[in-house]
């Protein structure tokens, strides 16, 4: 049962299984284990970024295709839901329509970009995605009538997903309200999408993708049409990223260029894939969790550490909470140095 749920692709390392199990339990019970607006928000972001990073891993780790347009697809999905909820009213039907149209538009965009550029060389694809993503980001901020421009869009989600919606009293001291439902909407949405992607990469289609990544000419000489497979992977990955974007929109009840389309997020995704381990899917879970937690809590941790070493020369300055980006950078360098194949690659090799 579990084997088939995980598409026969088990973590293959005891330590990795334990870590993944802990992450799963923490995310599944986050509102009860770590009650608080900020912690639950962090957990929801982790869920969403796991899907987003896994969809990028499908492209980069399994297909060997470098894209810089992944946040664009993420944004298309988020704006799809935002626009649907704005114009169709706050119903679940609007979420479905918005998410599906976001996924379809993303897949079509990926198809067009892919057919134009993947025919030639994968590097052109990277360059074209960069250009298209920048163009779309500018377009979104310019078309303020539709997209709210730089301010973005604030919208209402279905009442059942808002804090105002109450059902029953408390459970283990946690209020049973719509925000809790919204969290589980995000959690289960992310879980299903992740397991689906795990299925894709372990299907015959995924194997051909891996073969193409390793030796595209050889795959062609066996009889596989490399372009079709690459384009299909791009479309799938784009649709999955869009669905992650839709979850994000439902969670935040806001979309804006900075939260969904920025180059910064693109770089974050790249780092999460690399830190977690490319071509493993589970790397997305580890990478996203580490990264989002560090982004949200490194400042606090450093503040506390600075307090502890007060009076010692130099150290409090170095550990000043304002220097958190410096330490994040140091963490990246160390992780790339010690885990060149990502955390997952390292744990699997060490078994």
């Amino acid at each position, binding site marked *: 049962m579990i084997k088939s749920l995980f598409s026969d692709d088990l973590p293959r390392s005891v330590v990795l299984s334990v870590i993944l199990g802990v992450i799963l339990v923490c995310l599944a019970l986050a509102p009860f284990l770590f009650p608080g607006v900020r912690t639950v928000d962090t957990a929801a972001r982790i869920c969403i970024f796991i899907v987003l990073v896994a969809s990028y891993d499908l492209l980069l780790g399994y297909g060997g295709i470098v894209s810089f347009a992944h946040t664009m697809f993420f944004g298309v999905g988020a704006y799809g839901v935002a626009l649907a909820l704005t114009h169709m009213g706050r119903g679940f039907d609007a979420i479905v329509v918005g998410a599906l149209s976001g996924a379809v538009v993303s897949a079509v965009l990926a198809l067009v970009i892919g057919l134009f550029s993947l025919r030639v060389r994968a590097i052109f694809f990277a360059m074209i995605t960069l250009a298209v993503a920048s163009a779309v980001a500018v377009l979104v901020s310019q078309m303020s009538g539709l997209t709210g421009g730089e301010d973005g869009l604030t919208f209402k989600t279905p009442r059942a997903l808002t804090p105002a919606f109450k059902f029953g009293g408390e459970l283990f001291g946690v209020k049973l309200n719509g925000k809790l439902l919204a969290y589980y909407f995000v959690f289960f949405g992310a879980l299903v999408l992740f397991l689906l992607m795990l299925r894709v990469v372990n299907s015959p289609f995924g194997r051909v993708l891996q*073969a193409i990544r*390793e030796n595209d000419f*050889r795959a*062609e000489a066996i009889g596989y049409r490399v372009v079709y497979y690459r384009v299909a992977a791009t479309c799938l990955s784009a649709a999955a990223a869009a669905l992650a974007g839709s979850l994000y929109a439902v969670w935040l009840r806001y979309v804006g260029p900075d939260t969904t389309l920025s180059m910064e997020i693109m770089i974050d995704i790249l780092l999460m894939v690399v830190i977690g381990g490319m071509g493993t899917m589970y790397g997305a879970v580890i990478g996203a969790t580490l990264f989002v937690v560090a982004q949200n809590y490194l400042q606090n941790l450093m503040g506390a550490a600075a307090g502890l070493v007060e009076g010692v020369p130099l150290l409090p300055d170095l550990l000043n909470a304002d220097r958190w980006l410096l330490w994040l950078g140091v963490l990246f360098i160390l992780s790339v140095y010690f885990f060149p194949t990502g955390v997952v690659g390292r744990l699997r090799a060490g078994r």
Partner: protein
Amino acid sequence: MSDPILTLDGVFTNIAQYHILQGVDLQVPRRQVTMLLGRNGVGKTTTLRSVIGHWRARQGTIRFDGQDITRMPTPAIARAGIGFVPEDMGIFADLTVEENMVLAAASGPIDPGRLEWIFGAFPPLKTFWTSEAGNLSGGQKQMLSIARAMIEERKLYLIDEPTKGLAPAIISTMARALRELKAQGASILLVEQNFAVAKALGDTANVMDDGRVIWSGPMAQLARDAGLQEQLMGLSLEAH
């Protein structure tokens, strides 16, 4: 003799600015092992790669089984019935032996009878069936590379130096497998530097020099005639 399975007619192929093939004429008869011989750098590998479509012939025609494949895309050429074993083996190192074989059987599930036959010819593949192909030894990788081409029946096999760099014991395993393939009635175009293997397997021989086929004839005749070998390939193959 029936019409050849593969015919190259005045094929010219460039790689960047280099003119590698300069009018290759070659015929591969059906159900025979055709050897492609010659010194290093005369265009043997390029000839195979031009057939499979990795390098495009600039001029000339390549006909396979009655069909002009000169401008066809590589996957279509492969699906028309050509199995290719490249010199660099091209195995998928991150995938298991099993996954490599499943991928190679591009037209459907693996035929169990054929797989048993391959296991018989290359026992290590059975032993390491679920191991990552990247962990195999050089000889085992070569076995896998040939097995991948053999897993489905093809009309023609293009095999590039299958014994290169292998230990003598593995070379004889390789030769035995190729002999079995031949016994099944396969047509094979084989590039081989090991003259003993060439002599044992080849029916006809084609010797290339400077981007052309300069001599064609029965392998037995070439094997007998040390003077001819010296003249064609610039070395006495009797020494081998």
